């Protein structure tokens, strides 16, 4: 089951191509692990040293904020949000 994962443009420097990717898995953790196997440079930017989603990094599955256990369906879309601050 392949789903779409969109990453913010600022993270495009960490991947081999673009901001739209396909990955497989039954939940968010599996999808990310599959994505990292092809885009290893992305892992450090989304997960912290202990394998948790970094603080302030928001990932949505089908428009709902997700954690690593969130189930992913065959038509799901996953969006990593662009974090911003002022100035």
């Amino acid at each position, binding site marked *: 089951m392949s789903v779409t994962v969109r990453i913010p*443009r*600022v*993270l495009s*420097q*960490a991947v081999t191509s673009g901001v739209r990717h396909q990955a497989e898995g039954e939940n968010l953790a599996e999808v990310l692990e599959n994505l990292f196997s092809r885009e*290893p*440079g992305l892992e*450090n*930017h*989304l997960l*912290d*040293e*202990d*394998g948790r989603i*970094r*603080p*302030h*990094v928001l990932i949505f599955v089908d428009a709902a904020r997700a954690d690593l256990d969130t189930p992913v369906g065959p038509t799901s879309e996953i969006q990593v949000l662009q*974090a911003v*601050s002022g100035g």
Partner: protein
Amino acid sequence: MMRILVGTEKGAYLLTESGSDWQVDGPMFPGWKVTAFGQTSGGARVAATGSNWFGVGVHHSENLLDWKPSDSPPTWPEGSDRKMEQIWTFHNEGDQLLAGVAQAGLFSSDDGGMSWVPVTSLNEHRTRDQWTPGAGGLCAHRILSGNGSMWVGISAVGVFRSDDKGVTWLPKNDGIPSVDTAEGGERPEVGYCVHGLAHDPDEPDHLWRQDHQGVFRSTDGGDTWERIEDGLPAGFGFVMWRHPGTGRLLTIPLESSENRVPVDGMLSAYASDDNGSSWRVAGSGWSDAPQFTGVLRRAFDGDGNGGFCFGTSGGKLWLTRDIGDTWHELNASFPRIAAVSIVT
């Protein structure tokens, strides 16, 4: 033809001399802080990026414009009580590339920065539970080596020296006031806020130090330090640099810890030609207009041939080509400048 890499709060820029003007390429790494530059033993350039939420990155380039990310930048091991906040500096030691990071320690790479391992001999030093951050964080920001010894500056911990290729480390801060010990109190082993560090490559035991608490020198590898501020308008600052050919020292005084701008807004480097015994304004060309800005510790670089460049927290660049006798401000403005590297 001089080229200068400029790392800022918002991306990096490459300045290339073009006649009497400069061509500016960038921003590279848009959306990222660019915090340090280095060079591998193979000659590739490396750049460190950082973010308030996406962690750090290490990138490689052969042409200074196209950069390839490392898949495995420095990372604290799983379960560590430290977070990887920023890469502060790179240093070549033989075929090894070293990185100083916050939260402090040191990492080493044997493959030109593609993968990294922590230097546990320093990172897990017996004093580690006493390490505390300065205003800029708990950061390893300066690495020097020579004659088989190595020095690492960590804020606000102090200078460490290793005489056995990094197997063991000793704090070397005698003569430096600590950041938080009352006068007359017992001197702690660590707790010294080194800001800048330079040495004589031919006599590496001769060191100069811009510390939070003033300007100091050592002639015994850091075993002892003496204050050297004659002629300086203030003891505070971040920069300490030495020209290898003439021995001229350069620093940029700022008013105080509380007010980190030039005294009376008169921005200038100060030079010493007597190993720090006396200081004077470095040459001419400085602006008469108020310059209430700062110069950060990695925002200064020299090319070894008399060229020096520094960037300010206000985004301006200053350059000399004659070891600091004449200076001029480049006609461009950038975001807050964190790192500068003259590419030779």
